[in-house]
């Protein structure tokens, strides 16, 4: 198994600031916008963005939620591994809100499809956008594309993109791992 660094901490930091600015461009003061981090690994990215928006760009009262899609997945009883559920924390209604889904890697698009179903349990959003740090090009199974992307990469199917976060893994880095 070999691995190669796609992005280091410095590059990730620059990208996070760019993504934050792009969000501000579209959502201004975030008065009607909510960020939803997708469990398990999108929540780190979502809370980083929320932190940058609050501290560096002085945007107040960012609404941040965590959405778990386990019970909405389309591979229940089809995958060999049992599906592991995570906590959902959305203590607001998304009715008529602009929702931004935040996830680390966009691959087949199936998680996003599940998230689109799952979010309906919390109301009918005005619109939903997608932000991902890594967009794996040419690997989509569904017609889903990101509105904001950190870095687009071409990865073949037996390779894996792993995003590490300081909070969980002790460092900020993105690796390309060959299986």
């Amino acid at each position, binding site marked *: 198994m070999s691995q190669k660094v796609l992005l280091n901490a410095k590059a990730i930091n620059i990208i996070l600031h760019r993504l934050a600015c792009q969000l501000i461009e579209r959502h201004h003061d975030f008065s009607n916008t909510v960020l939803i981090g997708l469990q398990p690994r999108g929540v780190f990215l979502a809370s980083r963005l929320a932190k940058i928006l609050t501290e560096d760009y002085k945007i107040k009262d960012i609404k941040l939620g965590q959405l778990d899609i386990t019970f909405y997945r389309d591979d*229940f009883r089809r995958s060999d591994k*049992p599906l592991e559920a995570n906590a959902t924390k959305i203590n607001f209604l998304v009715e008529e809100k602009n929702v931004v889904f935040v996830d680390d890697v966009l691959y087949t698009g199936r998680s996003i499809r599940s998230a689109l179903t799952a979010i309906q*349990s*919390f109301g009918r959003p005005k619109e939903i956008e997608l932000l991902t740090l890594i967009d794996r090009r040419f690997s989509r199974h569904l017609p889903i594309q990101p509105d904001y992307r950190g870095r687009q990469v071409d990865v073949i199917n037996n390779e894996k993109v792993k995003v590490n976060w300081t909070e969980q893994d002790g460092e900020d880095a993105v690796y390309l791992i060959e299986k």
Partner: protein
Amino acid sequence: MSELSVNHLLGIKYLNKQDIQLIFETADHFKEVINRPIKKVPSLRDITIANLFFENSTRTKLSFELAEKRLSADVLNFSSAQSSVKKGETLIDTVNNILSMKVDMVVMRHPNPGAGVFLSKHVNASIINAGDGAHEHPTQALLDSYSIREKLGGVKGKKVVIVGDILHSRVALSNIFALQLQGAEVMVCGPKTLLPKYIDKLGVKVETDLRKALNWCDVANMLRVQNERMDISYFPSTREYTQQFGVTKDLLNSLDKEITIMHPGPINRGVEITSDVADSDQAIILDQVQNGVAVRMAVIYLLASKIKQ
């Protein structure tokens, strides 16, 4: 995440500690789901579940049915009162006929102990025991422990007394197994005639004085007097039973500490507990009912994930 070690839920005695832990962690997620504006998830949309009730039930049947529907499963309901069982059909025939309509899972309540175990050996479906005679009622014990965990922060090291008709109670047996597996201390308390001989061999304390039992415990689980199962008189009169084993507000107030009161329902108000106890803040009876749906969703979800396509 691990899987359950079993393919059926026939009784607590077939489970291990990790299974219970996994069920509770999964139930936490479902409890959050059933408190959402839209309380339904699509996980089990390709699963069909038959609820076979060969004995009367309100709470358990509704709770299972709601849990199944919240998981988007298709549900068949069957109660023996209006069925061919009355015409002499055997249990295996009844169930196989239902399974030939492509049913994946069976939830069964039956008056005979061991009916679930028997069925699991003869038919090809996941079986959940919803009460078999005086044997086990595993989902009730799981929701009881789950409610204790929620109220007191954990089960380990807690002292739980089960009061009342232990002899005829499947809830008592399942609770004893479940509580001991999680490291709680268990006592049973009731009239001598309603305590099974050799119950102490299960490692439980035995007490016939209710006041002593309540002073010892953190939680009292009050069982219903099951008049329908009593073929002979086990105590002189209901009034005498109430005087010795009924919990009143005065009795609770006279204890050194505040204990939690549970009841699996249906309550005989004024027999095993008085109305003011049942409706007090110390009672978590309605929490038990709500947790019942979440715990049953967890059990059904975890068993269904083991049914391979």
